[in-house]
């Protein structure tokens, strides 16, 4: 595990830091208050080629690997976690297309992925962590498939234009298909009013007998759960990066305040009780960085990374929530105020104790991997 960056990664990292500092961080509070991205902001993300960060060069992307991408997502999350999660949702979906998509599908859709958001949708009202209970159906009609169902709580739902959806075939096998918002029978449902990551749209799509060509099937019939799990793994690595970025933000706020605020005549940072809180946040941030970077490195190396990815998100999300609480306590009354961003950082981090598999589900997966070694 290393933190060495290549010259290309360094330049990408610096570009993301500049973009985040100038375009995202100044709007961080506004995005939370608006519950959306201000007009024109997402277009800047597109115009600056950020959607194509991981996309291979042959499709018009930049072809950066997951290590560089995770570091970029981390740098972005320091300024605004919502936009970092929007990109995470797009990148994890592209990973599944690249791994499981048929050549005809890739040629048709991937060149558009520098301008259009792609999303992965599993969850239905029957539950997010119970994919076998879904009711979305895929019925074979000649060379085509007809998809009918309702997907909810999709990261980037409404913003995304292309969706990979988990469905059941007539013989109850799981499979993933690509549908496009421009297809007849596609419509958007309601947007969730979540308490955190309020810039990231999370919404519903409704599919009413959408007919897709056979090559819109990812992988093969029966591979749906595997693809869904793989999407979770890819998402969790990047969510670890987001969480480390949130903790870096929490740490900076706590440290800056502890340096300028005095209790009687003693600067806060000289008080042991404050030092303990800052230390806890710093250790948790560093641990999460090591976990997500290791997960990304394992993925790039072609090694199993599912467990480390789950660790990055399980540990990272719980730590970012508790670190936010500690940072809030350092700032005391100001920390409890909406004038400071700490309360929204806690709400942002809280989302990732649930999204892409709850902490409980991940911990089950981690423990089973340990038990079944």
């Amino acid at each position: 595990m290393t933190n060495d960056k290549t010259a290309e990664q360094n330049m990408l990292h610096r570009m993301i830091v500049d973009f985040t500092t100038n375009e995202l961080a100044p709007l961080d509070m506004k995005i939370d208050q608006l519950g959306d991205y201000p007009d024109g902001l997402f277009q800047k993300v597109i115009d600056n080629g950020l959607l194509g960060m991981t996309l291979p060069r042959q499709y018009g992307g930049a072809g950066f690997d997951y290590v560089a991408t995770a570091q970029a997502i981390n740098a972005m999350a320091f300024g605004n976690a919502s936009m970092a999660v929007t990109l995470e949702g797009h990148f994890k979906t592209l990973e599944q297309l690249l791994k499981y998509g048929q050549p005809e599908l890739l040629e048709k859709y991937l060149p558009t992925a520098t301008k259009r958001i792609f999303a992965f949708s599993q969850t239905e009202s029957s539950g997010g962590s119970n994919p076998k209970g879904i009711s979305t159906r895929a019925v074979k009609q000649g060379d085509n498939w007809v998809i009918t169902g309702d997907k909810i709580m999709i990261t980037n739902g409404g913003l995304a234009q292309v969706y990979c959806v988990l469905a059941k075939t007539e013989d109850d096998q799981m499979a993933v298909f690509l549908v496009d918002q421009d297809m007849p029978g596609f419509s958007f449902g309601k947007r969730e009013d979540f308490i955190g990551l309020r810039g990231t749209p999370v919404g519903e799509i409704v599919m009413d007998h959408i007919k897709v060509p056979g090559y819109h099937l990812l992988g093969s019939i029966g591979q749906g759960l595997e693809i869904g799990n793989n999407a979770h793994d890819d998402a969790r690595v990047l969510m670890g990066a987001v969480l480390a970025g949130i903790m870096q933000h929490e740490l900076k706020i706590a440290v800056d305040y502890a340096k300028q605020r005095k209790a009687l005549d003693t600067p806060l940072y000289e008080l042991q009780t404050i030092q303990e809180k800052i230390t806890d946040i710093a250790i948790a941030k560093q641990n999460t960085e090591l976990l997500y970077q290791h997960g990304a490195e394992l993925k790039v190396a072609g090694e199993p990374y599912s467990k480390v990815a789950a660790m990055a998100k399980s540990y990272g999300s719980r730590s970012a929530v508790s670190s936010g609480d500690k940072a809030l306590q350092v700032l005391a009354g100001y920390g409890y105020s909406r004038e400071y961003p700490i309360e929204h950082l806690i709400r942002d981090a809280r989302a990732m104790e649930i999204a892409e598999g709850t902490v409980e589900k991940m911990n089950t997966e981690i423990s089973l991997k340990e038990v079944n070694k």
Partner: protein
Amino acid sequence: MKIVVCIKQVPNTDTVKIDPKTNNLVRSNVEGIINSFDRNAIEAALELRQQAGGTITLLSMGPDSYITSLRDGLAMGADSAILLSSRKFGGADTLATAYVLSEAIKKIGDVDLILFGRQSVDADTGQVGPIVAEDLQLPQVTFAESLELQDNNQLTGHRLLDNVVQEVKVKLPAVITVRSEMNSPRYETPLNIQKSFEKEITIWSENELAVDPTQIGQAGSPTVVKRIFSPEKAGRQTQMLPNNAKDAVAQLLADLNN
């Protein structure tokens, strides 16, 4: 249009730390970045190229580490980059630096426009652009805040000085130094970052240029820095005049006559 943009690498002041004991800047391991005004010059070149077509060559003089900044400029969209690098160029002041840049521009040949940032953020002299113009016997427009291509032979624009805006017209080829007010430099995109590493950066030393050894590096640098200091601010005095017009005018005239 053949455009050369001269850029300088400067320390990233965001990452410079201060030694708490000596209060001096800790310069070791400081990241080098493109001088911010030079990014405005690159952006101006990119916009002119979009309008008139042509090529943009980045030119810089410095050690190999300057390649990082040249790549940054390539990632913004420049076509090629040349680094003037040699131990013999070391220790150059603005005169010797401008001389080597001028010789390189002559070697590039048929250049229509040479752009600089208005000054570097580390040395702050703003001299290299104007000296290059003199060396090459070209017209110069310094502190430009706007530029417009009239045809392929002429630019119009505005110079923003302390209290004055000048409207100017200049025939090409010419040297322009660019203010930050002119534009907002674009970001390097991830794809352009990758592409920038596929472009070769040409390196020229004194062997590739027809330079006079007495005019380069330390030997060609007459500048002697005796001391660096902030000039004392001229104090301003406020004088209250009497509270009626007649007495106030009388007092003012008396003061002015004194």
